[in-house]
């Protein structure tokens, strides 16, 4: 029995609103390029966590179609179980009809109780979708609801506004210079090949190239524990009791860029981007992760990276585009 769930969204800060059903029922969701399912809590769920969130009531929707299929998604140490149904999903004015989605029946543990979101809208490839459910963007494209088979993300540092997910196009007002394209190396997550990670010209990780996942559903910049330890040490971050890498805020003015080279192009991340300032405290934007690296090193380019680089997720050509935000 799981006791906690959804631990990967512990630090997530960016949320959008969608609606499901007729008349529409609104939900706050994470637009997550690191997963592929859409799910929201439902009135079938009697977990305490569900009671404190908005719940989809299929009986209140005239367009809902039930199925007998079940859904189970494991996130970290816990899981969500539920059933699959079809209904109209409205996203950014797009009316996505016959969209399959998960209605959660159980969300175990206390963890989700305090989550600032109701559900998750996955934007990765269908190959990693649980129960083979068609992802929202695939359905949009299949129904001819978007003019281009791509979407893009701009994340603002502004506390209140400016961040946006754009479906079906690219708005050049969100970036400077030109977009640099990187082929997707494996069509599951938005996975690409990274050449190296350097500080002051010295390679500190990913020496012989490595894989990286571009994930709006991960807040920080995650990499192998040993490599992250080296970076934390280099920038003077030390772990506190809450597992965060605390660092002096004054270091923002003196620390060097961490440079990610991808497909031959350098993407510098300045200290002002990888040191996260809240009130008088500062923490490192890097975090370690334990993963079997027998197939090679893996990095997660989360919101810390995406805030600096406007990102295009191009399904038509299976490539990711980056430009300075």
């Amino acid at each position: 029995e799981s006791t906690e769930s959804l631990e990967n969204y512990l630090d997530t800060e960016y949320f959008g609103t969608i609606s499901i059903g007729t008349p529409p029922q609104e939900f706050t969701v994470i637009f997550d390029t690191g997963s592929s399912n859409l799910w929201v809590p439902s009135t079938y769920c009697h977990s305490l966590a569900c009671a404190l969130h908005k719940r989809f009531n299929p009986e209140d929707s005239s367009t809902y179609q039930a199925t007998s299929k079940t859904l189970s998604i494991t996130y970290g140490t816990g899981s969500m179980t539920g059933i699959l149904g079809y209904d109209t999903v409205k996203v950014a004015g797009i009316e996505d009809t016959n969209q399959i989605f998960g209605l959660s029946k159980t969300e175990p543990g206390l963890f989700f109780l305090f989550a600032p979101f109701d559900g998750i809208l996955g934007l990765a490839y269908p190959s990693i979708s649980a129960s083979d459910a068609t992802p929202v963007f695939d359905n949009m494209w299949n129904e001819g609801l978007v003019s281009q088979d791509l979407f893009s993300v701009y994340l603002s540092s502004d506390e209140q506004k400016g961040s946006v997910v754009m479906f079906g196009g690219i708005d050049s007002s969100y970036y400077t210079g030109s977009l640099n394209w990187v082929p997707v190396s494996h069509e599951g997550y938005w996975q690409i090949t990274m050449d190296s990670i350097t500080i002051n010209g010295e390679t500190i990780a990913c020496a012989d190239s490595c894989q990286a996942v571009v994930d709006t559903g991960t807040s920080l910049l995650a990499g192998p524990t040993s490599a992250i330890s080296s970076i934390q040490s280099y920038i003077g971050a030390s772990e506190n009791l809450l597992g965060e890498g605390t660092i002096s805020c004054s270091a923002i003015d003196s620390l060097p860029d961490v440079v990610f080279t991808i497909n031959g192009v350098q993407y510098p991340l300045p200290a002002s981007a990888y040191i996260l300032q809240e009130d008088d405290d500062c923490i490192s934007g890097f975090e370690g992760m334990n993963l079997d690296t027998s197939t090679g090193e893996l990095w997660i380019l989360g919101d810390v990276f995406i805030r600096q680089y406007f990102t295009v997720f191009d399904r038509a050509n299976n490539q990711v585009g980056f430009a300075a935000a």
Partner: protein
Amino acid sequence: VVHKVPLVKKKSLRKNLIEKGLLQDYLKTHSPNPASKYFPKDAFAS
């Protein structure tokens, strides 16, 4: 035509748990691992 969904920045779950004094208890029994979101290693074969 570009369809835009505005995103709002809200207090994270971690901050909510810190404010309620629950994060340390959680961390006593769990070690959050960002890798656990992702499927087994064969998903990363390039």
